[in-house]
């Protein structure tokens, strides 16, 4: 009774969190025009590809009578081969993402989930299969998958800097990793090399807060990670700015190098900017790779 009640309560709370995210993601996704990924060769699909003369072995059912009636030869109407991609998403659920430097800014986690879900919606509308890296949610088609994704992302993870999930990646699939990539770089490197080994290519989307880019702090300060695991005290925060920005630049550079080495693409998004731009970039990056 008790357990059922709490479960019910929790699920209600979760459910109440879902629709806004979903709605916003749908809204965002609605701004991007869709297109199927044609394979540029004949196969199973909806779009016309070419007429070819009927050959032995073709079923009579396949003959296009409208074309064939114009002459003596019989033609078969071929369609463009359209294939659905499997796209695996990973959105950082770590505590470090739950940060916003100002009251008017969304947290990084919020923006990352929004981008992830909007991408998923776009891809599902495009007929792709979308899922999570790892074993929890393998790629599937259909709108139900969107709801499952939203549900999966409505839970926060405890650890401060979550490592990218790189298990159970389907070979030659595509992947999207959305995170701030402020945690240990080794994990990212490991994940990307593993993905490259399996022929998985994709996109790294770095979501940063404007505060993390500008470092507008002064005076005696104790900096603490959101999870509380790491802290650093300084007497003059203003003095650190130069060096911090250097390190940040180096981190981005390292990520870029990694991407070049593995054939991935690196995108940078600030929570102060419009989500739509990031979504467009993300979609084009994926689209360009598929076509």
């Amino acid at each position: 009774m008790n357990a059922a009640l709490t479960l019910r309560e929790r699920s209600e709370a979760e459910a109440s969190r879902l629709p806004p995210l979903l709605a916003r993601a749908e809204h965002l996704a609605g701004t991007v025009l869709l297109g199927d990924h044609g394979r540029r060769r004949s196969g199973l699909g909806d779009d016309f590809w070419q007429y070819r003369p009927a050959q032995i072995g073709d079923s009579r059912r396949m003959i296009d009578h409208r074309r064939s009636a114009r002459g003596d030869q019989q033609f078969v109407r071929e369609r463009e081969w359209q294939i659905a991609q499997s796209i695996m998403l990973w959105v950082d659920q770590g505590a470090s993402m739950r940060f916003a430097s100002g009251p008017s800014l969304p947290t990084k986690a919020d923006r990352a989930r929004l981008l992830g879900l909007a991408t998923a919606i776009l891809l599902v509308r495009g007929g792709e299969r979308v899922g999570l890296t790892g074993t929890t949610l393998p790629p599937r088609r259909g709108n139900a998958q969107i709801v499952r994704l939203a549900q999966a992302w409505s839970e926060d993870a405890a650890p401060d800097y979550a490592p990218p999930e790189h298990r159970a990646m389907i070979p030659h699939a595509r992947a999207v990793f959305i995170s701030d990539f402020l945690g240990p770089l080794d994990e990212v490197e490991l994940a990307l090399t593993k993905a490259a080994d399996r022929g998985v290519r994709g996109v790294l989307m770095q979501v940063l807060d404007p505060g993390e880019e500008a470092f507008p702090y002064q005076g005696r300060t104790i900096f603490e990670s959101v999870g509380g695991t790491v802290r650093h005290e300084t007497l003059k925060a203003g003095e650190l700015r130069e060096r911090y920005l250097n390190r940040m630049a180096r981190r981005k550079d390292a990520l870029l190098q990694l991407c070049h080495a593995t054939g991935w693409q690196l995108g940078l998004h600030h929570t102060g900017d419009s989500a739509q731009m990031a979504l467009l970039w993300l979609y084009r990056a994926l689209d360009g790779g598929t076509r």
Partner: protein
Amino acid sequence: MTVLAGIGFTAPWVLLGLLTLPILWLVLRAVPPAPIRRLFPAVTLLLGLKDDESVSDRTPWWLLLLRMLAAAAIIIGLAGPVLNPSRDQQGSGPLLLVLDASWAGASRWTSTLDQIDAQLVEAGRSGRPVSILRLTEPEPPVFQAAEAWRGRLPGLAPMPWQPSELQIDQVLQALEQVEGGFDTNWFSDKITFAGHEAILSALQARGGVTVYQSAAPVMAVLPASYKDGAIQLTVIRSAPGPAATVNLLAMGRDPAGTMRTLQSTALVFESGATRAEVELALPSELRARITRFEIEGTRSAGAVTLADDSLRRREVALIAGTRNREGLELLSPLHYLTQVLVPTADFLDGALPDVLPANPDVIVLADVATLSPAEQDGLVDWVEQGGLLLRFAGPRMAASDLGRDKEDALLPVRLRSGGRSVGGAMSWGEAKGLAPFDEDSPFYGLGIPADVVVSTQVMAQPDPNLADRVIAALSDGTPLVTRKALGLGQVVLFHVTADAEWSSLPLSGLFVEMLDRLAVASAAKTRQEAQLQGTTWEPIQILDGFGALSDAGNLAGVDGVDLLTGPVGPDLRPGLYESGKQKLALNTVSGDAGLTPATWPANVPVKGQEVSTETPLGGLLLGLALLLLTADVVASLALSGRLGLARAATLVLGVLLAVPQAQAQDAADTDFALAATQELVLAHVLTGNAQVDDVALAGMRGLAQTLYFRTSVEPADPIGVDLERDELAFFPLLYWPITPDQPQPSAAAYAKLNAYLRSGGMILFDTRDGDIAGFGASSPNGRKLQNLAAPLNIPALEPVPRDHVLTRAFYLLQDFPGRYVGTEVWVEAAPPDAEQIEGMPFRNLNDNVTPVVIGGNDWAAAWAVDRNGQALLPVGRGYAGERQRELANRFGVNLVMHVLTGNYKSDQVHVPALLDRLGQ
């Protein structure tokens, strides 16, 4: 007391605390502010970064400065700083403050009191006993603590006189009784008086004397006199100085009885002159109203002179010999005299015996020849008391034996019998003009119009004294006007009639001017001592030292001679005195007085009256310190990142520092006003009956929808209005359903409703009983309506006429059904003079919106719709019912259109179109 640059300190040693400030600076500087805790995911990038300097971060310099300033303000504040400390009192021992306290110092009285107060404060600080002695109201000096005197300062007032000899004696006696020595500060009014030196030497015998007096000269107005048709005004000043201009105001009551400045005139003091004069020629009417003259901007009894009888309206008795003649008005012998005197004089009506006891100023006898002996004696007595008897000749006088053989007491000359006629049809010669006036004639200087001719006159006997008595003559030298003195008064004879029969003189402006010169219209009778002998005058209003009049209360009466001769003082206060019907003004400064400036021996220091007030600054500085510390709290909190706390602190401090004001009611009012004014809003009056209110609201909603769909009026959601609480001015139309049990609005609500109706609002009263009752008191609702509407300002009503603009404001309507059809609808009645013009279908009706529409057809019920727009209540039966609802809606549209557009559709411009639609 230590004094630095105008600021003194009562406890200067506390200033040593300022030396600790540098130490405090160092200490505060070394203590770093508390660290701020910040969440920062990118802290991983910071790990391992070392601070460059090993020195700890410092408190920001501005925060340090703030704290230093606060500390300094506290230290200086505790040291007791005083701005402008007074330093001009030396010595110790008792201090006597001597005040002239006469009218001459009244205009600077406030600054004198300020200076005395400053001296008292200083004396109190050095513990000197003080006494104050006023020369105009001497009391034996009693030395008391200065604080005790400070409380009594506001009670001191200047007196409207200068110290008299009696008072000087009192002062000298009082000073003799004081034991021991004392210093004296003498606040002089700059005017000297008898006994000035005696007091000065008596004071100098007891100790040092310092004199304080202002540099500005004292000015005074001398009593106004009336001479040669103008008021003579003189202002004197105590010392000859550079040229100056003063404004003299003539004050009096206007016809409405309000005291106001009737005339303002500028007087110019020549450089070096002590006297300035001006003549003020005013219309007699205005002059008679003047009650006082005063120097503008000077508040003292000397700058005021009161006007008494001498400037007031004269009382004139007009007596004609032919009173019983019922002639035309223009033939009345007194007509021209009346025309001349009406603006300036009051008339006494009645026969001579009745008029005489009223003691008029002037008696005019027009062609009166015979007087009874009693009248004759009475008139002679009256003239000898100062009356002016003005006689005009005429047929009767010419025919009588008056003054034929010997000079009549009441005629200036002997008369020859019969008179003469020149220039007539039966006579030789031409009508005569006037000869120029002699230099000693009162008429000297008047212009003589050429068209003034005399055709008939009575002739004077050539007596030896005739030449002296003629004041106007004809061109042939025969006298026209003669005059003789009789006692204090005079007798004047015009040798022609007062009307235009004998001469054209009464028709001319010269006649008016001559009467004015003769002081018939007005005169200044200067009173003689003999006249006042043995009279007792009762004070009515007295002047205070500042020149303000106040009621005399029960002051004793004074002897008439004293009024003329005695110096003003406590027993003879300046002011207005009355005896019988006469009024006499006693002014502070009499006619022959001058103002002699006080002179002081060289060994008496004389100081000016400039006073710089002491201002203790301690409280100010401590308050400043408090404010700085408050700012420090907020700044420190902001620095350590607890800005939320800082906001809370600001809030709390704001609450502490400022008195919070409850604004909830205002906010509610504002919301209501916003809701009611952002769009056009229809409103109904809340009756307290929930069902009726609901239907009314639904009805308003229905009407609003109808308007929205059919017209360009697009109302927002309707509002129920509480008459007691809500502002009505926002609504063009109020629907007021009547229920028998609704409460009577309060008086305030009625005031609001009346203001609403006056300012163009309209109320639609609906008794909602059209099915069972006609209009009137025949139903409970009707009676209630009468009760409710009784205090309202409702004009006369009539049933809607066929050409009322309501019938064509939007739709063409003949009747105005609601849920019921029947009772008549009443609106403001058309003006009674509205008439239909031939060929026009409509009258030009009243030019405004009817403030009320009264009916009983329960319109709201017919209009009412629910939220979905479905009609709420059934109307009639079947299609006919729907038609009735439609007509009800049309009535609503017409009503709102009428409210919003007024009589626009009443304009005859629309007639052709309307006629076309009416099919006529």
